[in-house]
């Protein structure tokens, strides 16, 4: 995977190794401090600084000198440079940590806190860097990113204990020193996140949404919502990646007129061509709903397209930042638009339910991010608990007898962030139309419902807004089904929701939140199975599962 640059691979391997050694020595030092080990750690830090400088020099001079580097090669070099800067920072933190030990009255004091687990976790992640880099292994890179979250969690646990002990008024100095050390370990997590992101950048060639993340943060703080940073997971924003490079086209020094902006999309010819065809279909179904195409060009395996930039806010921005009245308005427009689309595109011919096929197709990506999201067969006494594989197979079988009575033209990826609301013009637009096509209307409904649920903001006010939006869409879809004699609506929605809950976890790095969705997905599948041998018309969806 790595492009050969004279000796860079070797230097890099050494740097990772030396930083791991530094961590290992620090762990040893914290358990049994000695002058000899202290000197060793401090002098190794100089060596690490040098290595970092050598690597940085090689990276910059290669980019400067070689004129014919491919984009991928440049990405690799940039990634190596970011990783080495962060590794060096981790080594610095180690020195900071061992320096703190001198302030303890009793060096064994630290032993009462769980710092070893934190260091072990850091070491495990450091061991993943080299293999992930060599093999272009995304799951290794994701594991490294996840370390930040894990270390935060461990830090919080120790922090709470230290605070509780501080309230007793005893060992104040030692407790503060312990807190400093544990805080440095937590900061190593931040550096590991940078390392993980740089690995992802080298593998897939894209910077992941840090700018969007910051934009969301700013929007949130401007609107007076004090959601702490840790409650907004960058991965959910990463989740909106469509696999195309998308950038606004405008002259550098010119301000973009929102009405005249455009978006340049470039990527695989099949994907871009399909999106172009879908945009054209939407233009005939509902003019103005999708963007206009300004130009389209195919070049071998790649295609590019210039499309209209539709001004407005995406629906998730509306939900997070707008007033209740604006949200109410936006929903009204969404509902009227959907009703119109469903009415004009309705074809009353049965179509097989396809949720399980979609779930199976994405299961590998889920397991790559969350290897624990499958379970083995179990039993408690006489009661048998099906494995996830058995559940999926049984649901697939049962689903083959389940049909939607009619089809409509669907968006295909009806997430909140693919719906743009223009408040001034009182209309909505659909974006990212690559997956549009004819199908069960519940395809879009279920994706919409779960995309509300999985917004990773947990303040009660925002959850209330999200729950309201879920209730609105659920009520609207139920009403539509009732008016159109759709008697198996609840059974199909059950499977479609199970699919969305289960597969959405691949965008969610917050393990507890992801697990909540996974458990809800499996719960719905089990509910569905328990209805076997009864008519689907009598199935009742356990609606509580929609809300959080």
């Amino acid at each position, binding site marked *: 995977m790595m492009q050969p640059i004279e000796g860079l691979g070797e230097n890099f391997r050494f740097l990772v190794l030396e930083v791991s050694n530094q961590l290992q020595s620090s762990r040893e030092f914290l358990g049994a401090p000695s002058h000899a080990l202290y000197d060793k750690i401090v002098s190794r830090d100089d060596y690490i600084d040098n290595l970092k400088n050598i690597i940085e020099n090689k990276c910059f001079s290669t980019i400067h000198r070689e004129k014919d580097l491919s984009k991928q090669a440049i990405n690799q070099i940039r990634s190596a440079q970011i990783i080495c800067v962060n590794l060096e920072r981790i080594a610095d933190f180690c020195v900071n940590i061992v320096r703190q030990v001198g302030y303890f009255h009793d060096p064994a004091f630290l032993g009462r806190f769980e710092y070893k687990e934190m260091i072990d976790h850091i070491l495990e992640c450091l061991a993943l860097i080299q293999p992930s880099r060599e093999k272009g292994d995304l799951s290794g890179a994701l594991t490294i990113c996840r370390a930040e979250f894990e270390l935060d969690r461990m830090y919080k646990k120790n922090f709470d204990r230290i605070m509780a002990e501080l309230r007793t008024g005893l060992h104040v100095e030692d407790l503060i020193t312990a807190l400093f050390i544990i805080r440095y370990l937590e900061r190593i997590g931040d550096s590991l996140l940078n390392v993980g992101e740089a690995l992802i950048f080298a593998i897939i060639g894209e910077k992941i949404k840090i700018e969007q993340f910051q934009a969301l943060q700013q929007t949130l703080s401007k609107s007076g919502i004090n959601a702490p940073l840790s409650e907004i997971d960058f991965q959910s924003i990463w989740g909106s990646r469509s696999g195309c490079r998308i950038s606004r086209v405008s002259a550098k020094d010119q301000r973009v007129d929102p009405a005249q902006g455009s978006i340049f999309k470039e990527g695989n010819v099949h994907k871009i061509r399909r999106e172009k065809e879908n945009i054209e279909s939407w233009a005939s179904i509902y003019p103005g709903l999708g963007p206009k195409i300004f130009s389209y060009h195919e070049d071998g395996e790649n295609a590019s397209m210039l499309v209209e930039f539709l001004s407005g806010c995406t629906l998730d921005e509306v939900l997070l930042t707008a007033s209740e009245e604006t949200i109410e308005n936006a929903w009204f427009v969404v*509902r009227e638009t959907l009703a119109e689309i469903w009415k004009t595109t309705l074809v009353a011919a049965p179509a097989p339910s396809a949720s399980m096929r979609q779930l199976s197709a994405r299961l590998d990506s889920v397991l790559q991010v969350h290897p624990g999201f499958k379970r083995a067969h179990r039993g*408690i006494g006489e009661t048998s608990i099906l494995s996830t594989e058995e559940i999926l197979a049984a649901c697939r079988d049962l689903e083959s007898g389940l049909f939607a009575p009619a089809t409509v033209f669907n968006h295909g990826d009806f997430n909140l962030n693919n719906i743009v609301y223009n408040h001034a013009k009182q209309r909505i637009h659909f974006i990212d139309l690559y997956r549009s096509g004819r199908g069960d209307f519940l395809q879009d409904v279920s994706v919409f419902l779960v995309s509300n649920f999985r917004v990773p903001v947990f303040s009660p006010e925002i*959850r*209330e807004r999200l*729950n*309201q939006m879920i*209730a*609105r869409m*659920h*009520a*609207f879809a139920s*009403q539509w089904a009732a008016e159109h004699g759709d008697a198996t609506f609840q059974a199909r929605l059950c499977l479609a929701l199970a699919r969305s809950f289960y597969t959405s976890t691949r965008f969610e790095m917050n393990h507890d939140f992801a697990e909540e969705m996974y*458990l*809800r997905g499996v*719960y719905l599948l089990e509910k569905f199975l328990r209805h076997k041998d009864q008519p689907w018309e009598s199935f009742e969806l*356990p*609606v*509580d*599962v*929609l*809300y*959080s």
Partner: protein
Amino acid sequence: MGDEKFTFESLQDPKTIRDYLQSVIDGIDKGRVILSTEGQEIVLHPANLLKFSVKAKKKSDGGKLNMSIAWKESKREALKVGEIISISS
């Protein structure tokens, strides 16, 4: 309101434990599990969506079986979904 807590630890024979479990089962069926300490009661209302975990451990000198049922307040009821339905045309 602060959290209310109930704790109970004892030694029992299997038959008595069966009675306790049956009381819990009856409570879940009724949607109401009452736990009391000297006249002070905690009344739990298990929701429709319950997180159920079982953890078991076989040790060289015995064993352990932990069962837990946890839930959060039903958000759907708090929403007054009926009012929302009425705004639909």
